[in-house]
């Protein structure tokens, strides 16, 4: 049996598994409402990866803790976070601090993010002779692709091939001499090349590397429909984290809706884990309608196609209904669960579920790159970091790769990681020997091949974009500040024509997630109203801290 740690939630005992997140333990016991908003609404886990700030709880009397990022490593007393609640009064005072009192590290190469791309970059640079430190916010390396299993016991389903691949990569990095620091959140980047980070124990550090590789990945793109803020609505990634890291199901009945293959993988995994997958709702049509693109995928990466077919097979044989050409158009509470309205092709269906997972693509986590002044171009959907073929950005010494620079998936990130790691090492004066040069050539070819795969994949999964004009006025645009589309439209109609002005007039984007979900939506609204294409400056300016940080953590060693 897995080790059970007793935690208390609002005074009620909840048996948690050692190593899982507070969010996983609560979810497994049917608790979905964590935070209470200003308007007394309940919010639950949404992103499951520390971005959205909707799962805030009070842990052992300390407010503002993210349930999804808080590890159950000892008995904990958990309470709901209530908006504007009073602070604990017994707080010792710390003397005023200066930046000179912060611990400073000067690694030769700093890699931010320990997903496949960051790890491959670190390994490549280390092999070329660079001294490499990797920082990662999660408790163990692997990122959002590998999502390492965090619980143990004979009742726990063992790691699968994807997990094992991640463990092997981490082991390879460590064996090569890469220093990996987990539980370190990098929340500030300052020009020319300075980073601020806080460790899990609250120590704030400054990193002044000679070069940096930014591999901070992506988070789910919002799908704003009435009710998308309700507890029980979460991202596909959040549900996958529950299952892959904690072996917990998000609910008994789960509906998975969105666009792309990740939703199918989640359906197969949750079905295998015993969930009743109500339906997989795919915005695109059936893959059978694009045989050419499917063939191109098979040529570029037969293994990934086989994997995709396996997920599909597991869903089919498991009796999971696949609904193509449909999207979620609203969600409302019904009984203990949710009633989800689906529309598409002139049809409408209402299905009931306990949990709705939304997976409508990704947004790059590019705030560090933007703060450093790296050039970005807007491709109409999202910002793409300008990089040369080796991953060097427009700022000397700053390399970037993977989903934070645009999107491309784990395989592209890994191959680009090798390229960027070698380029960074070369830029630092390390020689790239013949063996590494061969690896570089191979990585470049692999990256190209997987880019072709991605291109074909998204041809197969081509779906209509969100019709921003059709989103009803009473739909939440800013989840943090509880501002609705109607308020955004009114401000724009009032003549405000840039995101910053609308933000100041409406509070859209002023909450703790820093506008990560409302920003692309507001940008689209403004672009549609003004006819001006979004660009590098049309969103909100990057404002540290990119993760909220307590004043005590800034004030010095806890």
């Amino acid at each position, binding site marked *: 049996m897995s080790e059970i740690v007793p935690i208390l939630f609002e005074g009620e005992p909840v048996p948690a598994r050692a190593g899982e997140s507070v969010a996983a333990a609560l979810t497994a016991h049917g608790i979905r409402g964590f935070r209470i908003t*200003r308007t007394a609404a309940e919010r639950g886990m949404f992103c499951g990866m520390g971005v959205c700030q909707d799962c805030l709880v009070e842990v052992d009397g300390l407010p503002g803790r993210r349930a999804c990022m808080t590890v159950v490593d000892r008995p904990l007393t958990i309470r709901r976070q209530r908006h504007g*609640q*009073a602070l604990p009064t017994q707080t010792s005072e*710390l003397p005023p*601090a200066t*930046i000179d009192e912060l611990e400073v590290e000067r690694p030769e190469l700093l890699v931010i993010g320990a997903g496949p791309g960051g790890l491959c970059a670190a390994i490549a640079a280390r092999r070329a002779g660079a001294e490499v430190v990797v920082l990662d916010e999660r408790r163990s390396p692997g990122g959002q692709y590998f999502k390492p299993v965090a619980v143990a016991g004979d009742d726990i389903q063992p790691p699968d091939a994807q997990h094992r691949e991640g463990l092997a990569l981490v082991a390879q990095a460590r064996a090569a001499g890469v220093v990996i620091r987990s539980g370190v959140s990098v929340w500030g980047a300052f020009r020319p090349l300075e980073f601020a980070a806080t460790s899990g124990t609250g120590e704030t550090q400054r990193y002044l590397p000679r070069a940096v590789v930014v591999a901070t990945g992506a988070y789910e793109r919002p799908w704003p429909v009435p009710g998308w803020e309700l507890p029980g609505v979460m991202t596909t990634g959040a549900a996958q984290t529950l299952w892959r890291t904690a072996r917990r199901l998000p609910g008994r009945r789960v509906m998975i809706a969105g666009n792309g293959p990740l939703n199918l993988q989640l359906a197969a995994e949750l079905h295998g884990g015993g969930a009743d997958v109500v339906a997989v709702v795919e915005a695109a049509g059936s893959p059978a309608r694009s045989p050419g693109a499917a063939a191109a995928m098979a040529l570029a990466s037969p293994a990934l196609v086989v994997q995709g077919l396996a997920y599909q097979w597991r869903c089919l044989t498991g009796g999971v209904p696949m609904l193509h050409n449909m999207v979620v158009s609203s969600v409302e509470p019904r009984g203990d669960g949710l009633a989800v309205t689906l529309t598409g092709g002139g049809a409408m269906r209402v299905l009931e579920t306990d949990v709705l997972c939304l997976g409508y693509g990704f947004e790059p986590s590019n705030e560090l790159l933007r703060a450093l002044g790296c050039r970005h171009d807007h491709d109409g959907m999202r910002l793409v970091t300008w990089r040369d073929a080796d991953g060097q950005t427009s700022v000397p010494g700053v390399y970037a790769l993977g989903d934070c620079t645009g999107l491309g998936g784990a395989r592209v990130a890994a191959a680009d990681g090798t390229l960027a790691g070698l380029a960074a090492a070369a830029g630092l004066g390390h020689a790239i020997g013949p063996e590494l040069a061969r690896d570089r050539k191979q990585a470049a070819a692999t990256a190209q091949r997987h880019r072709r795969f991605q291109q074909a994949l998204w041809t197969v999964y081509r779906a209509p974009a969100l019709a921003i004009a059709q989103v009803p006025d009473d739909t939440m645009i800013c989840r943090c500040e509880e501002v609705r589309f109607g308020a955004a439209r009114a401000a724009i109609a009032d003549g405000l024509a840039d995101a910053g*002005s609308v933000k100041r007039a409406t509070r859209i984007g002023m909450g703790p997630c820093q506008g990560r979900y409302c920003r692309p939506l507001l940008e689209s609204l403004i672009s549609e109203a003004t006819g001006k294409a979004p660009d590098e400056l049309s969103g909100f300016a990057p404002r540290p801290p990119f993760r909220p940080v307590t*004043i005590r953590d800034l*004030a010095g060693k806890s």
Partner: protein
Amino acid sequence: MSLALPATIGTVVIGGGVVGACLAGFLADEGQDVLVVDDGRGAGSSANAGSLHVQMQSRFMRLYPEHVPNMELQLPLYPKAVAFWRELGTSLNADFDLKMTGGLMVAESQDQLDFLKLKAARERQLGLDVEILDRAQLDAIAPYFGPAIVGAELCANEGKLNPLLCNAAIRSWILARGVVLAEGVNVAAITRAGQGFSVATTRGTVACGRVVLAAGSGTRPLAAGLGLPVPAVAEPLHMNITEATAPLIGHLVQHADRMITLKQFGTGQIVIGGGWPARQDSPGGHAEVELASLIANASLAQHIVPSIGHLRIIRTWAGLNTSVDGMGVLGAVPAVPGLFVAIPGDAGYTLGPLSARLVADVMLGREPGEDLNPFRPERFA
């Protein structure tokens, strides 16, 4: 809005911050046609942290001791400026989240308290409502300070407001009055043309009878182009805001010897500022925050009010304050008929609406009710 600018208009106000916007509103209230041109970067007003300053800020006294006589000259305007904010809120029927809580400048040592006593004595002579509190008296009205604080100067005329609410209400008011608001437009040059001016902008040229320079430190190059030296400099400053918590800090809090302002908005969020530097790489460029200021400012805040240590900072930002010589630059420029300057002074947001009204009075031929001679724009010539 990418609408074409009018070819001719009565008055062009350059700068759409609190001063320029209010001034345009006061002129429009009297039926004048006004164009406000703003470069859209919202250098000062949109970044303001909402303090209603009255007592002399120790920061400026330390940084610019030579400005103290000028600061004292303008001091009587400060309580009037705060009162005028209240009047403006009433006349616009707007909620500014304005609270007349009083302001506390805290001391950590007897030396600092002695400095506050001297300062308070001088301020009392100049008409301010100030008193010195020892720790016990302080605890009776403000039970949130940490052990380091020994006493404070209380200035009853001080308070706070939420600039986001103010800016939005002022914008609605002037748009309703028919002011033409050109945002995201830069002024390249102002030249004399006949009895008036020709204002060249990035969206075309506008002919007008009168020009008001209300662009903070951006006034300097524009005034220089018309032969008027105005030594206004931009002071890039750092600010922080926390998530919301229950009502805790009622007053506007400052420190006798360290740079800080600390206040809580009606939203429950605590704003921490007070003059820590931000970085501006090029004149007119965006100001950016620096880690050193964030660390120093935030750690000082919890040193003064320890219980906020567990609160999370959710955002920092930088804005530009405008500093001249400890005083505002207000009024007509006799050597250049039709030219007016409106730079409010050290606490620009506090002084903004009143400064705008005084200059509007001059332009409208009304008696401003204050001696504006000390603030005359030509004093640097």
